[in-house]
């Protein structure tokens, strides 16, 4: 299955409404708050429209007739309105902002959940930096729209609506003429929006690309220094930075086209009022007083419209980001748990039946594999590098599904197990040990809840019991030794020790070691052999290694080469094949 998110620059035809519908589940619980907030927005707009009317009224009725007492009364009234506006204005920002923050929170969680749902293949096909950018930068753009733009959007729409009604009710023909430029704007906006969104999408993509580049370079900084390529970081970076610059300028110019056009339309509206209004007056159908208030209503209509121009660009940015987020959310894990499963009545823990496998980008790497692993035995997979050993092991743990054929676990199609059931049975020590920032304790107990409540002393007792004590002693502060994910404070060998302890403490039925001890010294390795031997009798072990001493105790040896798996009769036979097979990789 193809999980690649790299589609080039074609903006999907997500209409604003469709996007809103998809966002709806994240917002639905905010319905009440949002309706309160929107009420506050409307109330605020009404209050802001009322105060000037009151002041005008006060001037006409009190100041000009010189009534100071009356003036004070209406002053108090205006103060009251301002106080109310203080409350509504606080509420609209506070409530909508809160909605924005919570939607952002849920959206990020949702994307992260989706990431966790997707199989390993997804991560092989996408770059870490781009994913981070989607989770952080794109969701932030959506948030900005929610927390800042939406309030103004609604407030402005309301003001415009009110002004438009006044305009038309004062004089239908003049009103319609005044609003005509807005109609043209609507058309222009419709035409320009897809272009603006496309530009924003390109800009988001190049930001993701830049983020990937930074991610890769910083994580591999060692090589950059040792190979004298400090310039590499700089030049590679400058290149993506330049691309990002160009894309961002494209988006910036696109986003900024609305404002001048809306401004022009606004002025066109005014000039229409003036010219047409005066013509009407000349024809005796209108008065100067009405013309003046008409002008101010036209202003009330067009000045929020001008603000909408900026908000609309903001909306297009949010839509483009939504597309990128949505790309992830629509992906489905193809490693589903199946309901009805084929079974073989057999005592094998793992069985491969006619298994073929190919990675999405390439050639078939496993051809028609049939093999059978019995409970409690030790198996070794040997063969030249690139022959398919890791892929075979990955299929046993269902990191991937075979292209065709079936893998059975305990006699049942492995696809019928839930991930929890499957992973409880299988321990897999990966070729590249994975560490998380934290202590040795946290890393050993990672994903293991059995000992989560144990004190360090109790845990040490468990470790002693499992014969792992001497491995723990390799860490100067024991369980409390600090580790970082990418850090170099502990060696690769030590990381492999942690991965080993992590897997053994989970007591799996099937333990797969994929070159799990490659960087551990041979003396310690003998210790690991002892530990493996002392695992419960029912534990099946699958060992992939290049060192023959690690596999000499295997009950059976499989020779994996060029995508085929052959059973080697004896150790000598295996070595013979290793030495004399023509390498295919």
């Amino acid at each position, binding site marked *: 299955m193809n999980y690649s998110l790299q589609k080039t620059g074609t903006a999907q035809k997500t209409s604003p409404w469709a996007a809103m519908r998809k966002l709806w589940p994240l917002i639905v619980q905010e319905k009440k708050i949002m309706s309160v907030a929107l009420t506050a927005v409307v109330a605020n707009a009404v209050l802001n429209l009322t105060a000037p009317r009151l002041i005008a009224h006060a001037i006409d009725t009190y*100041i000009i007739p*010189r009534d100071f007492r009356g003036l004070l009364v209406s002053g108090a009234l*205006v103060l009251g309105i*301002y106080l109310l*506006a*203080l409350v509504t204005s606080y509420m609209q920002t*506070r409530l909508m*902002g809160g909605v924005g*923050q*919570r939607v952002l*929170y849920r959206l990020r969680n949702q994307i*992260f959940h989706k*990431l*966790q749902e997707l199989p390993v293949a997804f*991560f*092989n096909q996408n*770059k*870490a930096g781009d994913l*981070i950018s989607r989770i*952080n930068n794109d969701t932030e753009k959506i948030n900005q729209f929610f927390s800042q733009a939406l309030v103004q959007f609604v407030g402005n729409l309301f003001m415009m609506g009110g002004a438009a009604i006044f305009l038309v009710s004062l004089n239908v023909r003049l009103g319609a003429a005044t609003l005509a430029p807005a109609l043209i704007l609507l058309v222009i906006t419709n035409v320009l929006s897809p272009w603006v969104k496309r530009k924003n999408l390109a800009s988001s993509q190049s930001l993701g690309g830049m983020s990937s580049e*930074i991610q890769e370079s*910083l994580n591999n*900084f060692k090589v950059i*220094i040792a190979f004298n390529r400090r*310039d590499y970081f700089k030049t590679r970076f400058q290149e993506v930075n330049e691309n990002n610059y160009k894309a961002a*300028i494209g988006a910036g*110019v696109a986003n900024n086209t609305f404002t*001048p056009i809306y*401004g022009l339309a606004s*002025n066109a509206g005014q*000039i229409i009022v003036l010219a047409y209004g005066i013509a009407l007056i000349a024809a005796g159908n209108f008065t100067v007083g009405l013309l003046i208030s008409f002008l101010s209503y036209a202003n009330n209509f067009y000045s929020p419209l001008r603000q909408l121009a900026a908000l609309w660009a903001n909306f297009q940015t949010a839509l483009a980001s939504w597309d990128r987020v949505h790309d992830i959310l629509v992906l489905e894990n193809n490693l589903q748990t199946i309901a009805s499963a084929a079974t073989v009545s057999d005592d094998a823990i793992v069985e491969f039946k006619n298994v073929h496998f190919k*990675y999405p980008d390439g050639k078939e790497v496993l051809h028609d594999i049939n093999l059978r692993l019995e409970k409690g035995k030790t198996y070794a997979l040997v063969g030249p*590098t*690139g*022959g398919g*050993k890791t892929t075979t092991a990955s299929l046993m743990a269902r990191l991937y599904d075979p292209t065709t054929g079936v893998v059975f676990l305990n006699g049942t199609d492995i696809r019928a197990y839930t991930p929890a059931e*499957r*992973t409880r049975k*299988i321990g897999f020590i*990966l070729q*590249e040990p*994975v560490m998380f920032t934290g202590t040795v304790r946290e890393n050993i107990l*990672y*994903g293991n809840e059995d000992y989560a409540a144990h004190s360090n002393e109790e845990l040490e007792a468990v470790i002693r019991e499992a014969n792992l004590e001497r491995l723990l002693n390799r860490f100067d502060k024991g369980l409390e030794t600090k580790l970082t*994910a*990418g850090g*170099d404070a502990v*060696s*690769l*060998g030590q990381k492999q020790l942690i991965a080993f302890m992590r897997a053994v403490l989970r007591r799996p039925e099937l333990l797969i070691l994929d070159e799990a001890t*490659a960087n551990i*010294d041979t003396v*310690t390795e*003998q210790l690991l052999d002892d530990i493996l031997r002392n695992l419960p009798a029912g534990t099946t072990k699958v060992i992939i290694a*290049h060192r023959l001493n690690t596999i000499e105790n295997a009950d059976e040896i499989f020779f994996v080469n060029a995508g085929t798996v052959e059973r080697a009769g004896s150790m000598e036979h295996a*070595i013979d094949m*290793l*030495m004399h097979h023509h*390498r295919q*990789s």
Partner: protein
Amino acid sequence: MTTPPQQRKPSLFGLLKPYGGLIVPLVLLAVAANALTLWLPRLLSHGIDGFIAGTSLHAVLWEFGIASIAIFIFTYLQSIVQTYASERVARDMRNDLSAKISTHSFAEVQAITPAKLLTNLTGDVDAIKNFVSQAVVNIVSSAFLILGASFLLISIDWKLGLAVLTIVPIIGGTFYLILGRVRALFLKTREIIDWLNKVINESILGAALIRVLNSQKLEHEKFAQANASARDIGISILKLFSAMIPIITFVANLATLIILTLGGKFVIGGAMTIGDFASFNSYLMILIFPILVIGFMSNVIAQAQASYDRVAGVLAMPARQDTGTIVEPLRGSIQMQNVTLTYGQKTALKDVSLAIEPGTRTAIIGPTAAGKTQLLSLLIGLIQPAAGEIQYDRRNINEYQKEHLYKQIGLVFQDSIIFNMTLRENIAFNTQVTEHDLQKAIATAELSDFIASLSEGLDTIVSERGTSLSGGQKQRIMLARALAINPKILLLDDFTARVDASTEKKILDNVAKNYPGLTLVSVTQKIVSVQEYDQIIVLMEGEIIARGRHEELLNTSPEYVQIYDSQQSTNTYEL
């Protein structure tokens, strides 16, 4: 962080100095567009006055039309200049940052953490960009309007003018109080973004393990925790802003009230004309709008300032000076004299001395966590010793020009580091590699068959973290990369761990044949591959406990014998 405490707070506005060529026209365009916009209402009232007086409207309509088009052109130009200015600031700042980062040592980058640098280069720079694109123009034109309106207010009636202007210090005080707090919160927000980056990053790098252990729930929890902190701090910031903006609006509104009541009183008392009263009101409108704009912009400025503090912190870190000057070719001898290395409290290497002659082969052997990898990192200068000295050809490593040194030393890391680019670029990572050297390196690392099997050969793009390659293939690519620079000295860190025995033997023979005179230092676990070496050094818990040739060590070092015995059982197979 290493930012010196005494350092002056870096000024956001100072940042703009080099961009005068864009900022000045930007401000001029904005002021021109604003001035014209202010002029339009006057045109309209002239039009009406003129109509009443019976003059022709044509002139006014023309003027209005031309002014509108001029405004359109000015704002359009302004938006373009603004985009260019802000993006250029962002681009240059990113380039400065990357240039700075590229001078850092490996240890420094690890200490700052890649997650933080990623936020610096993306989110922080974006915040600064917003400052340039929005705040600059708005602040300047707002300040222009506020000053002009204040001047007009005072000139009409100084008593009422001053009364109205009392709001300005109140608003200033509110800004000061709230923005001070917000700035601290914004700094914290950025730290939380670093944290989110880290959690996402680790969950991506550890994707396979997480699926093997079915520990997604744990990752969710970690993420939810960071994400909830981000939400909570977002809400704290929101609370401050949602208080600040209404307060400022309210105070500005109070000014209207002052005019209405106090001004009304003056008019009633006859101290002021109704005409002046009316213009007072209209100028107040001009005064209030820019104050609100500044309120909104304060948000942008606070974020940008917090980000700029962080970016400036990185930019202000002292540049590492390469004081080395020696550019002579290496002969290949290496000495370590009484070298001690510490990581915090922990001593990784204690008083290590060793001497390696040109053209010889040396193995370093010892248990896991003995300090072998650190020793190699010291040799290539990735880290600096706490005490002691490292010499090449009897001269201190720091006397050599680093670049020159790296040209002659090939290092194969233990962990496979593959870049997301073509195989050719991965192997000829240093661009000075010639085609001949490249082919020789590929042949030596036994990669020719593999590359020939790829439909696009050397131009095949390998994926990030090398996930499309097997462990052994990655390691051989790493070796080819080191050999391609035609090194005088080759440092191997557990190179053969993932390569099968027969390939390993071929590769080592190839190296001896194709790179004669090479000084080889190999950290390894396998005695059998190094039995013939000129020197074997046994390292244990950071100390050298034995050294010599294989036969000597068998007689003198019980630890060596123990290691040897542990490999004895299958020794015969490991040819």
